C-alpha cells in the first residue's frame, strides 16, 4: 500500500534536527551563511540543503504567533517534475517517493520551474537537479526517513498512508477541542494526494504554501500536447508535401506560361 509522511506543524518546535539529519544521512555539506535578521538559515533550499524550516512570525494585537513551516519535496502523486522531465529521470519509487535518477538527469532544469512548491535545485558541480528523496535508500530497506526518526516532538511521522490520515484526523479533533481553529490536512487530496501531508494550524498562505497547488498552466497545457504536436507538425508537413508533389505531376516548366 502507498506510504506517506505526515508533517504535523502543530507539534513542530523549529529545532531543525530534520535539517541536520537530512544532511548527515545524505552527507550533504554545510553552507556558508550569514544572519540576515532571523533565526532561519540557510536562506533557501540548495543542492546541499534538501529540507529546511521557515520561521514565520505573526503579530495580531499583543499576542504573537510563531509558525514553523517545513520546506521539503512534497512527493506529489501527480508530480509536475516527473511529468515534464524530458529524459524521464524522475519516477515514483516505493509507491510514494519521487526520486531523480542522478544518472539519467541531464540538468535541463525543466523540473525546477515546473514544481508548484519550488523545491528541486540545480547543482552546477555535476549538472544535476537535486532534491529530497524521502530517504529512498532507508525506506526501501524498511527503515523510516532520517527526518522522521530524529523528530523529538513527533511532528514528522512516516507509515502507511491510511494510518497517517487517521493520525492527522485524530490530532485535528484533539486540537479542535483545545480551541485551535483553521486546521487543515494539506495534501490529503491536493495533486492527487501529496506523499508528504502537512497538518496546518494556520492558513496555507501564512506558511507560504499555495492554497490550491496545481500544475503550472504552461506545464499542464503544454506537456500533454508536446509529443503529439511534434508528430502532427512533422507528419502534416510531409502530407502537404505529398499532396503538392502528386498534384504537380506532369508539370512542365514551360507550361506554366510566360510572365
Amino acid at each position, binding site marked *: 500500500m502507498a506510504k506517506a509522511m505526515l508533517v504535523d506543524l502543530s507539534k513542530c518546535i523549529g*529545532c531543525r534536527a530534520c535539517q541536520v539529519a537530512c544532511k548527515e544521512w545524505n552527507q550533504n555539506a554545510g553552507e556558508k*551563511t550569514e544572519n540576515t*535578521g532571523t*533565526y532561519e538559515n540557510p536562506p533557501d533550499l540548495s543542492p546541499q540543503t534538501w529540507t529546511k524550516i521557515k520561521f514565520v512570525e505573526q503579530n495580531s494585537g*499583543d499576542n504573537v504567533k*510563531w509558525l514553523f513551516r517545513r520546506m521539503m519535496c512534497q512527493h506529489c502523486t501527480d508530480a509536475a517534475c516527473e511529468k515534464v522531465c524530458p529524459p524521464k529521470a524522475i519516477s515514483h519509487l516505493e509507491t510514494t517517493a519521487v526520486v531523480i535518477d542522478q544518472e539519467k538527469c541531464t540538468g535541463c532544469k525543466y523540473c525546477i520551474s515546473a514544481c508548484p512548491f519550488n523545491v528541486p535545485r540545480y547543482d552546477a558541480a555535476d549538472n544535476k537537479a537535486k532534491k529530497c528523496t524521502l530517504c529512498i535508500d532507508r525506506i526501501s530497506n524498511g527503515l523510516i526517513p532520517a527526518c522522521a526518526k530524529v523528530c523529538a516532538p513527533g511532528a514528522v511521522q512516516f507509515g502507511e498512508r491510511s494510518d497517517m490520515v487517521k493520525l492527522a484526523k485524530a490530532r485535528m479533533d484533539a486540537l479542535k477541542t*483545545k480551541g485551535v481553529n483553521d486546521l487543515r490536512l494539506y495534501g490529503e487530496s491536493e495533486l492527487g494526494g501529496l506523499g508528504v501531508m502537512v497538518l496546518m494550524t494556520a492558513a496555507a498562505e501564512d506558511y507560504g504554501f499555495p492554497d490550491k497547488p496545481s500544475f503550472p498552466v504552461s506545464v499542464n497545457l503544454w506537456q500533454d500536447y508536446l509529443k503529439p504536436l511534434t508528430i502532427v507538425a512533422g507528419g502534416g508537413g510531409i502530407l502537404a508535401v505529398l499532396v503538392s508533389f502528386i498534384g504537380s505531376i506532369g508539370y512542365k516548366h514551360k507550361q506554366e506560361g510566360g510572365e
Partner: protein
Amino acid sequence: MGPTFGRGAMTQSWIDIKNSDVIMVCGSNPAENHPVSFKWVTKAMENGAKLIVVDPRFTRTASKADIFAHLRPGTDIAFFGGIINYIITNKMYHEDYIKSYSNASYLINPGYSFKDGLFSGYNDKDRKYVTDSWSYQTNDAGATIKDATLQDPACVFQLMKQHYSRYTPEIVAKTCGIPQAKFQEIAKTFAATGAKDKAGTLLYAMGLTQHTVGVQNIRAFSIIQILLGNMGIAGGGINALRGESNVQGSTDFGLLAGSLPGYNNLPDAAKHPTLAKYKESEVTKTGFTQNRAKWLISMLKAWWGDNASADNDFAYHYLPKNGAGFQKSGYTWIALFEAMYAKQIKGLLCWGQNPAVSGPNSNLETAALEKLEWMMVADLWKTETAEFWKRPGVKPENIKTEVFLLPAALSYEKQGSITNSGRLIQWRYKATDAPDKAKDDLWMVDTLYKEIKALYQGDPNAKFPAPILNLNWDYGQEPDSKMVAKEINGYTVADKKQLASFAKLADDGSTGCGNWIYSGYFVGDGPADNKAAARDTKADPGGLGLYPGWGYSWPLNRKIIYNRCSCDTAGNPWNPQKVLVQWDGAKWITNDVADFGAKDAATGNPITPDKTASAPYIMLAEGQARIFVPKGAIKDGPFPEQYEPVESVIKNPLSAQQINPAAKIWGADKDKLTAFGSKICPIIAITYRVTEHWQTGSMTRNLPWLTELMPEMFVEISPVLAERKQIAHGDWVTVASARGTVSARAIVTERLQGFKLCTGEPEVAGMPFHYGYTGLVTGGPDEDKNYSVNQLSPHVAEPNTGMPEYKTFLVDVRKAVT
C-alpha cells in the same frame, strides 16, 4: 532545593513529565535548549496537559504554550509570591499534604522578624545575616512545638500567609509587567494542581538560578509545589534542566568549592577542625544524614587506603580545609577569578572548560588569566581560553603566561558513564579512536598524577607530600574506567568485594566507597553488574515511564524522590491512576524504589505507613519539607523576598531594600556597575542559549552543519526600541554595558516587547552567549572582534551558591559605527 527538600537534584525524571497535568516553564526554554524534553511535554499536552510559559522573551517553547506572559527579568519571586498569595487566599492548597509533609505547622521563635525588606539578624557592615533567630520553638525536651490547626500566628503557615499577603496581583503587574487578567489566568490554572489527583511541574533552568536571588527563586517555587502537594508524586516536582551532558555527575563528584563526592561538605577550618567536630556538626540525630560519617570515612578509605585508619582519623587531615577565601568571599567562581586577578593564584588546571567565554565579566577574567604564571588546558579544540593571549585587542608579547594545550578525546572516543539531570547514570562505549595524539581525560589525569607522585618521591624536602604519596591510585598501566567505577561503587576493604548499595557502608574503615550516592551502580565484573549499561526497556511498572531496567538512577535506582508523599498518611495514593507506591494493607507495592523505610532492614517485614508518614523527606533532620528554612541552611532569609537585580532601572516596589541585602559584590577596577537611575545603560539585557549552539560554542561553532544554522552573533530587540534607535533588521549594532562592548546583528521582532506596566516602560535586549573569537565561525566577519556577550555581564553573585547574575544587567544598544 537542597535546603528545602534535602537534595539538590531534579525531583522527577525526563519521561515523567508526560504524567503532568500542568507544566509551568519559567526561567527556561526547553523547546530550544532541551528539545527532546519536548517529546514528553508534547505527550503530556496530548493527554490534555496545559503548558504555561512565562519568560521575558517569546521563545520557541512559547510558540507551543497554551498561556504565555512576558515577565520583566529578575522579578520571578514577585510572580511566584503572587501565586503563593493566590493559592492561600483561594484556599487551593492541599491541606492534608502540607499538614503531614511540611513544616507548615512548626512554631517559629519570636526572635524572627521581617521588616521592610530585611529579616532579623542583618549586619550591613559585612552584608551578612546572623541566622540564629530563624529557628523553631522547641519545648524543654528539645522537640519542636507544632500547631496542627495552622492557626497559631507564630506558625510557619501564618507567617508565610502574612509575608506573601503583600504580593497582590496589582504589585505583580507593577513589578513583573504581567497584566492582572493574565496573571489570574496563570495562577488559577497552576493552582488547580492543588487538587489531590492533579500533578503540576516546573521546568526551570539558568533563567531562575543566574540571579543574585537565584536560590530564593527556586525556594519560592518549592513553596508553591509544597502548598499544592506536587512534590514526590508522578508528574509533579521541580526540574532543573541542566545544560551539560554530565553536569549532574560532575556536581555529584564534588567538583565545586567546598564540596566532596556525594554532597559531603569539604571540612571547614572554623567549623570542623577535627573529624570529631565534623561528625558533631554534619551528622544529624534524625533523618538519613545520620549516616554521613559512614559516607565520609568510606571515601577517605577509598582515597588513602591503608594510610587512613582509626588512629589517624582516617587521614581526615589530608583533606584541605576551606578558609575564608578571597577577601572573605569564599572560593567560588567569581572569588577564584578575583583572586587570580589579584595575582594570588599562580597556576590553573583547566579541564574541558572555556571560561574565557562562559565566565561573567570576561574582560576581567581573561585579564586575570594574563596574571597566571602557567596554565594547562585540556580540550578538543583551540578554544578562546587556550588562546586568550592572542584575543582581539591584546599584544601576545606582553602576556607572560605559559600555556599547555592538551588534545582531548571525544565522548564516543572513550568509555565511561555519565549522569543526566534526572539522576540517570548511563554507560557509553568507545566507537572510534581519537585523532592522532589526542587522549582521553582519564589517561591525562592518571599520567599527571603519576608524574607528580614521581617528583614528590624524588624530593625529600617537599612540602607535606603525604596526601600525594599515600594516595590509593592504581587503575592499571592504561587507566580503565571500569576499575575507577568499582572504586566509586564501594567495596569491603578486607576482601575487595563490591557492595550492593550504601546500606552496608561502615564508619569503622571496613568499607571503602568513592561516592556513596553512586553505590550500587557497578556491583561486580559480570555483564549484568554494570547497572549503568542496563538496557531493558520492557519493565515499566505502573505505566509511568519509570523504566527501572534502563541504566541506574542514583540513589538506589529511585526515579522519583520523596515518593512517600504520593500517598496520604495511611498509604493510599492521592491519584489512583498514577501509583508510585501503595500500602495494600499488609505491605508496600513499589512501582518506584521507596524513598522511605518500606521494609525493616534487619527483619525484612514491612513498616506500616504511619511510621513513615511524619518523615517523607529523609535527607532533612525534621523529615518534612521546609516552607520556612531554619538557621544556617540558607544565607539570605527563611522566606524568599523580591529584590531588584543589582543593575536595575526600577525602584523595588516591594520594600525599601533595592537589592538582595546578602548579594555578593566585588570591587576590582574592572568590576564597574551601572548605578540605579543612570541613563547611559537604560535597557535590560538577558543572555541565553539557542538550539543550534551549545554553551561557549567551542564544540558547535566548529561544525559546519550547525554554523550554517546560526552563523553570527545577534541581539533581539523590539520594534519600538529598534525604531527609537534607528536600527533596521539585520544591521550590525554595538551593545555596551559598564564593563565592555560586543557587536551583534539586530533581529527586530515582536517576540520581545517593552514592559508597559512597569515604571519607565523598560525595554529588553536578548543575546546568546555562544560566540567568541576562535573557531570555524566566531560570530561575525571581523578577525579582530570578540563576539562574546559575557564581556558585558557583571561580577555579582548569589549569596548561597556564588552563582553570577547573567540573566539581567543593563546595557545600551547603538547602531554600529562602521
